[in-house]
């Protein structure tokens, strides 16, 4: 029974640590499915995190904070969308610029909030709570539904996006745009409109991930709070082979490695001794895992595992 409880506890920690990465990964998938490589995920997360934290501190209203985070990341992705879709700029460079921009804005905004904790009404609204009925489900209940509502919301979003791509008309159209925008256009699909929708929706999800990170998980501001989670998400998009359900696995893998790192900060029990591991090495674990995962991903050869064929290309109908 004790073992079960400690496993449950660890799974809870995994879900808690993986949720912001899951949001950002889903955001990345939305963009890339429509053929837009977005390297600005990190910047969008930071925009969401900093603006929501700022509003939470100054107004004390959790919903206002959430809205501010979402609007900030939407604004950021609107810049990216306008540049890459309407002006057809290089997606890699534009995405990198977006990350630099988002990082800069969040640092500036965060100057006055470093080290300050959030007011109680925020944590009360967004913090852990048991959802009726759902929290009674064995295993899943405690892991997902006795947490901050953001945790089950991320999983639900993943499932919804999966259903969107596989079961709906407009989801299919989106996939066709990512694979071959010329084919989509010739079939009468409005490429520009779909791309905008996906990029903006993707940016919004990154923002929600940021809000979760600053207002729920951390509860205290520090500069560059995301610590590269946006970049991990870029890698997780590849790991998930653009499948939202596999994104859950990817993000939780990240959570698990982070969790292991935390657990062994006090040393690893080994033959009755405690092996002390350098804290920096433990902090490196998730990033090393990401690199290893990407290496293995490259070994897969199946055609369906390839990225959307037109990823990173701008589309212009009259190109000759």
């Amino acid at each position, binding site marked *: 029974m004790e073992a079960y409880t400690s496993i449950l506890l660890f799974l809870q920690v995994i879900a808690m640590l993986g949720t912001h990465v899951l949001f950002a990964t889903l955001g990345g998938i939305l963009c890339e499915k429509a053929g837009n490589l977005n390297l600005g995920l990190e910047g969008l997360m930071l925009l969401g995190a900093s603006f929501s934290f700022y509003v939470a501190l100054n107004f004390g209203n959790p919903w206002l904070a959430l809205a501010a985070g979402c609007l900030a990341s939407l604004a950021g992705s609107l810049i990216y969308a306008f540049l890459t879709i309407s002006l057809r700029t290089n997606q890699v460079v534009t995405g990198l610029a977006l990350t630099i921009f988002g990082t800069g804005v969040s640092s500036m905004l965060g100057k006055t909030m470093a080290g300050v904790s959030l007011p109680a009404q925020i944590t009360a609204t967004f913090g852990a709570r048991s959802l009726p009925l759902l929290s009674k489900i064995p295993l899943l209940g405690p892991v997902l539904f006795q947490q901050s509502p953001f945790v089950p919301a991320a999983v639900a979003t993943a499932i919804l996006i999966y259903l969107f791509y596989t*079961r*709906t*008309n*407009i989801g*299919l*159209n989106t*996939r*066709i745009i990512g*694979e*071959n925008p*010329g*084919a*989509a*256009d*010739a*079939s*009468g*699909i*409005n490429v520009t409109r779909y791309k905008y929708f996906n990029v903006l929706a993707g940016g919004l999800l990154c923002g929600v991930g940021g809000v979760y990170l600053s207002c729920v998980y951390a509860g205290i501001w520090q500069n560059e709070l995301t610590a590269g989670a946006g970049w991990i998400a870029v890698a997780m998009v590849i790991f998930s082979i653009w499948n939202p359900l596999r994104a859950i696995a990817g993000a939780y893998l990240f959570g698990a490695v982070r969790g292991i790192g935390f657990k062994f900060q006090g040393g690893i029990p080994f033959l009755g001794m405690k092996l002390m591991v350098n804290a920096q090495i433990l902090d490196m674990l998730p990033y090393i895992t990401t690199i290893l995962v990407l290496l293995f991903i490259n070994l897969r*050869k*199946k*055609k*369906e595992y*390839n990225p959307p*064929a037109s990823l990173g290309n701008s589309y212009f*109908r*009259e190109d*000759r």
Partner: protein
Amino acid sequence: MTADSYADKQAYVRMEGICKAFGVVQANRNVGLEVCQGEIHAILGENGSGKSTLMNMLTGIYTPDAGRIWVGGQNVQFASPKDAIDHGVGMVHQHFKLVDVLTVKENIIAGSSANFILKNKNISREIRETCSRFGLDVGLNLDKKIYQLSVGEKQRVEIIKMLFRGAKVLILDEPTAVLTPQETAELFTILKRMRQQNCAIIIITHKLHEVMEISDRVTILRRGEYIATVDTAATNAQALTEMMVGRAIDMDIRRQPAQLSAEPVMEVKGLRALGQHGVESLKGVDFTIYGGEILGVAGIAGSGQKEICEIIAGLAKASSGSVVFQGEEILGLSPIDILRKGISMSFVPEDRLGMGLVAGMDIISNVMLRSFQKKKGLFLDRAFGKKKAEDIVKRFEVSTPSVRHVLKKLSGGNIQKVLLGREVDLEPALLITAYPVRGLDIGASYHVYHVLNQQKEAGVAVLFIGEDLDVLLQICDRLMVIHDGQVMDILDPAKVTKEDVGLLMLGHKGESPAAADSKQEEVPSV
């Protein structure tokens, strides 16, 4: 039908005074077109004559600068392909607009106003209904992925997709360019059935015998201008060519008897290689080529042509086998060493500029890309390169303002002349050329054939990988047919028909029914 009966009929599609310019190039100048229902209308013209531009305006991809379009009696202005589809105009593009990793079904319903939630069963039933209305047997598993289909099957998916969207006007751009003779015959059966269903069919082509075989009327364009519309029954191939080119053209490829060298120039034995996805792309290829002959290679696209070229040129690795060039094993040598031994390759890929040339550099630099390897020293000898480039431009009649002109600004035909010219200029013992006339007009194509014949007469071994079976049968001394990475047979072109070659390309060895049965799944059915 006669000319009178079309004059009586109300045209379903009418284009009038269409003009379109791209920068300074006038692609269409005051062009008109009329197509009736129940008609197969061919549009004939050389490359750059404005056929595709005209059709792209009828399908809403380009917007005309001037002119008016009527479809079904209604004056229309298409702002996007969606508008065109809504008016029942659908196009099957030369490079199929299909998504490889999606299923047949998903490709067919793409962009259609299907329900928000996709209902698999209903969709399959609707697709089958559409097909049976046009008397088409799908003959396809709707849940197969596109990349698992043959070229002919992909084309059928494109046609079904357009019919499913309610197309009454179907435009096909060079539909037979990549088909075997058998697949072409099936396509024509489908088109005739659609004609019975009162569709208006427009087919863009530059193959005269197909125009004569399938069309009711022909509209000829030349250099962006409308030349004439004639009844197919009242004309002939020679007259059509003259209208298309603007002058009489000698369409014979003279084949001198081969003067074979005593020793083979190259012997390829048991060549095997792995392709992109870990699948074996060459499964034991054997052939021998002598100096003074043209050895043709015929096969469906992707049967191993590219791999053979790349392995011989040293660009790709073979997993086993041997390639002996003038008594010396060359497998494993670097591309530069192979080039120095006297093997030249000009490969024209589908996009016509992927391999061997640098689009953003001028003709001199592109010529020097190969020849500077033979020079010593740190600095480039631009004067020498300039002289070479001018030689090539003169010898191959490349039309360019100067040799300093950036390559990508030349027309496709001239780019290909530079490529072939550069390789020939290296005076190779073996010249490999793949698809050298891809997208060239008739005049330029015959110039290329002439160059290949000259090379052969000079004692060069020429390996010619081609698409057009008529040409291969005319120009080659021997014709090697490959299928799925294997050599099916090496034939004497004087003794076989196009249909024999077509069967071999599809993988049917021998005419026995048993052999055909075992390969049943590969036979395209209609």
